[in-house]
């Protein structure tokens, strides 16, 4: 828009990038098997000792990248859902999409076990099937003919369904052996477990594909966020675009939680913070929301890892500790 605002958007976005780099450096420098910022610098540029290489490239970097990618995916997913439902409380976790994906993750483990890494690429597809089915059920249950989807009903149905699906996932998980059960319990708590390059590779294509598509759809999102009728009047193919964008949101969330664990509230908070900083125009806030999502999840994972070393607290719990009060605050303000 006007030059002043464009500059503000640029400065804020660059600040978020700097913040993400800072959190990355802190993350590497803390906890078990850490590298100082100087060691990190030389290791990145190929001057590290074999031990330093091992720490960075085998232990730390995969997990950090998974946190960053999943944070971005969840943030953009939440942003899309909020814009499409015109409901500031929409979030893939709150709406039960994550829980639906989680249920399918249990099913996946029953078939393939956690150890068989060769089939990991299809894990996001399992999660997507669960998340997609959940989204469809929520949509049907909260849709009333003539009124469309009512925001309050959407959240109520979602919260109820999320509880039911998590319960079902845990019940199913009791049939697993010890190791797989422990894994599943951790997954539900939102422990970032994808700490191998294979997890990065199974998530990366989804993010690389769907994040740019979401950004390109900024214009359409702007219109749908105004009002369905206004959107149609300006030439948006509202029905079709809505389905495409909801599918993208569900896919982003499902693929993210498949490797990051059931993490709620990132999709709620990141878009909110971004919007309050640069306004609701999607060209401005969508990239920023992605960066903030990455910062939030990486910071939560780092904090969770450092306190209670070495087992750590799952990132999902740390995020929830911040996110739940934020959710209450948004509810109270409405």
């Amino acid at each position, binding site marked *: 828009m006007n030059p002043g605002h464009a500059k503000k958007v640029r400065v804020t976005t660059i600040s978020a990038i700097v913040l993400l780099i800072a959190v990355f450096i802190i993350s590497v420098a803390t906890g078990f098997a850490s590298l100082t910022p100087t060691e990190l610098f030389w290791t990145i540029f190929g001057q590290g000792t074999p031990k330093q290489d091992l720490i960075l490239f085998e232990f730390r970097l995969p997990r950090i990248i998974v946190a960053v990618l999943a944070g971005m995916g969840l943030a953009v997913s939440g942003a899309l859902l909020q814009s499409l439902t015109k409901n500031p409380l929409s979030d893939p976790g709150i709406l039960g999409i994550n829980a639906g994906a989680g249920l399918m993750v249990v099913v996946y483990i029953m078939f393939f076990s956690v150890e068989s890494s060769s089939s990991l690429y299809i894990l996001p597809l399992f999660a997507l099937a669960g998340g997609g089915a959940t989204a469809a059920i929520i949509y049907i249950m909260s849709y009333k003919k003539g009124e469309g989807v009512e925001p309050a009903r959407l959240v109520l149905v979602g919260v109820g369904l999320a509880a039911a699906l998590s319960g079902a996932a845990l019940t199913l998980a009791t049939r697993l052996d010890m190791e797989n059960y422990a894994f599943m319990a951790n997954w539900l708590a939102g422990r970032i477990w994808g700490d191998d390059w294979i997890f990065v590779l199974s998530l990366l294509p989804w993010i690389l594909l769907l994040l740019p598509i979401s950004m390109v759809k900024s214009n359409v999102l702007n219109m749908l966020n105004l009002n369905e*009728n206004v959107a149609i009047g300006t030439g948006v193919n509202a029905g079709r675009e809505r389905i495409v964008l909801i599918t993208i949101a569900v896919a982003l969330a499902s693929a993210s939680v498949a490797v990051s664990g059931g993490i709620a509230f990132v999709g709620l908070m990141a878009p909110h913070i971004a919007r309050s900083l640069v306004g609701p125009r999607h060209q401005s806030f969508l990239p920023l929301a992605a960066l903030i999502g990455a910062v939030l999840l990486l910071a939560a994972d780092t904090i969770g890892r450092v306190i209670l070393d070495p087992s750590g607290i799952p990132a999902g719990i740390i995020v929830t500790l911040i996110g739940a009060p934020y959710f209450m605050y948004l509810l109270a303000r409405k």
Partner: protein
Amino acid sequence: MSRLHAENLTVTYGERDIVKNLGVSIPDGQITAIIGPNGCGKSTLLKTLSRILNPKTGMVYLDGKGISKEPTKKIAQKMAILPQSPDAPEGLTVGELVSYGRFPYQKGLGKLTKKDYEVIDWSLQVTGIHEFKDRPVDALSGGQRQRVWIAMALAQETDIILLDEPTTYLDMCHQLEVLELLDHLNRVENRTIVMVIHDLNHAARFAHHMVAMKDGSIINEGTAEEVMTRQVLRNVFNIDAEIGMDPRTRKPVCLTYDIIKPVELVGNLA
């Protein structure tokens, strides 16, 4: 001449026919006001003309082509619609909202061109909201907000603009302000305006063509003098109206009116 017209329109909502086998032609370069009691289908007709609703039967034609068969963006370059009292997202600025009116001309990421900025600027000027450009829409008064939405419709650069109750919820002064703006756009810019409006006197004062609806059909249409008659208002609104002449505008006005009570009810009371 009429670029926008509809034939045999039937629009249903659930089981009920809201608009029944209706045909209408919108005169070019004029202001058309659609009037009628609540639930008569006037808003539904406007939404169908603007392709927000799809008719069960019949077709709306724009420049001789059925609007459901043309690319929707192309129609948006010819015809803009301002629905009833939309809300802007929190924090969206006036300039940003008006820039959204350029959607039908944009591709990809939607970077605004020099031409876009010129049109946005002009829209802000003509609606008198240029000074609020960087203010959030939700911080403005009702009358100012309505002018922002009109500016967004103007940024669409269309010859035809449809408005659903553009004066509802505004005070007397702001109602007139909006109507005078539409009048200006019609006279100076030669835009075709179609509006659904409740205030009969406003309709008579500003519209060249009035369309009176009842129960999903057009009961009467024509100039204000032809439609603002005791007989038509009795048929359409079930009121007994006293029609006079506005000493300032020389247009018909409804001076006062009474509800026509069913005969048996009057009998019982007596």
